[in-house]
């Protein structure tokens, strides 16, 4: 279980999943745009956020349907060439969401598929992180999920700090939170400068 205050974990739980209500639920009509009254009827199929779906599923009130980006077609694409698939577009929280869904989903192969997928993409990503130009944002960054982007940035930062240490040593700098230099200079009146 992730940290209670983890912002990314909270945002990941905001991803929508499709669930199938096994029982009638009073007062949840807002969740179903197609519903005409205040309640959800038994058998209704509704998209709800994961944090809600997870809890209701553990209580066996609903059953979860896996999102479309874990389906057979995407798995074939990953098998063909893992590092070229645009997972970032399907879902920025591809792995975290899958990890949370794996224990409650009807599909037992989801966990091993995620592992296979990350293994396939990791090596290529790390290789690129150490070799691409440091100043420009490379094009393939768009293909990565959030977690992969973090790994990529971490690898790149380590190269950057190594270079900084190697070539110029640590420097004192003003605190970044104060913004750029121009603002403070503008505060000085020209009379004080002369």
């Amino acid at each position, binding site marked *: 279980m992730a940290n*209670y*205050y*983890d*912002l*990314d974990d*909270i*945002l990941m*739980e*905001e991803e929508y999943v499709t669930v199938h*209500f*096994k*029982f*009638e*639920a*009073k*007062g*949840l009509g*807002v*969740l179903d745009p197609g519903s005409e009254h205040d*309640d959800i009827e038994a058998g209704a199929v509704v998209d*709800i*956020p994961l*944090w*809600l779906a997870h*809890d*209701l599923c553990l*209580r*066996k*009130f609903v059953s979860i349907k896996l999102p479309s980006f874990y389906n057979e077609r995407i798995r074939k694409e990953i098998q063909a060439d893992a590092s070229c698939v645009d997972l970032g577009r399907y879902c920025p929280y591809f792995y975290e969401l899958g990890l949370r869904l794996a224990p409650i989903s009807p599909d037992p192969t989801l966990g091993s598929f995620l592992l296979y997928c990350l293994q396939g993409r990791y090596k290529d990503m790390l290789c690129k992180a150490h070799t691409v130009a440091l100043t420009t944002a490379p094009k393939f960054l768009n293909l990565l999920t959030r977690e992969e982007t973090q790994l990529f940035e971490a690898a790149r930062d380590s190269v950057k700090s190594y270079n900084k240490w190697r070539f110029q*040593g*640590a*420097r*004192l*700098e*003003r*605190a*970044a*939170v*104060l*913004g*750029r*230099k121009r603002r*403070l*200079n503008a505060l*000085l009146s020209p009379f*004080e*400068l002369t």
Partner: protein
Amino acid sequence: MAMFGKKGAELVREAKQTLATTDQFRPFNKDLFEQVVKETEEHYGHLQERMSQIRVNDSTEGGDPNFVGGCAQHRSVLRNKRCLLAYVNARMSKIKHLRWDLGAVLPDDITGNLSATERTFFQGYSDALSSYMAEINLDLTVDSTPPKDPYVQIRVIGNLGEVLLDDQETSLLPHSIHFMTRTEAEPLVMQGLLEIYQG
């Protein structure tokens, strides 16, 4: 109308941006914060309504419709609480950093972006740190990067005037260049009043 966590997620996105923006301190989003609190109250109201309608000896198999609905409302209350706390917590960690980077007195444009409680927190945190440093007789905020040389050459950017350095009074005029100990220069460089001069 209760939105089931949409506003809360917005607030968390805001918190993420607060952490990501490095060149300023984002103001406390009081408006959105209060909207989430209000929404939580709404969910709580719905929850009570559902609870009051649950019949105890209901023999329907599986779920009483009121119970299913009540669970969802309860979950929403917890969810919103988590979003609110995460927002406050994210800002708190950033405020702690301010003390280390800028010292005990914050510039006006940053203080203006803190909420009243955050100002109290900063004051308390700052006092605690100061008294601890006084107790062990060591300024922990200097030498955040290991120094190579105890002395540095600096150029004055802000208007400082007469300053007591090394037990003697020195006049730091704008654009003048001085040689001073690194421990004395560091806090002033962090506040943006001096810069390291490399000739």
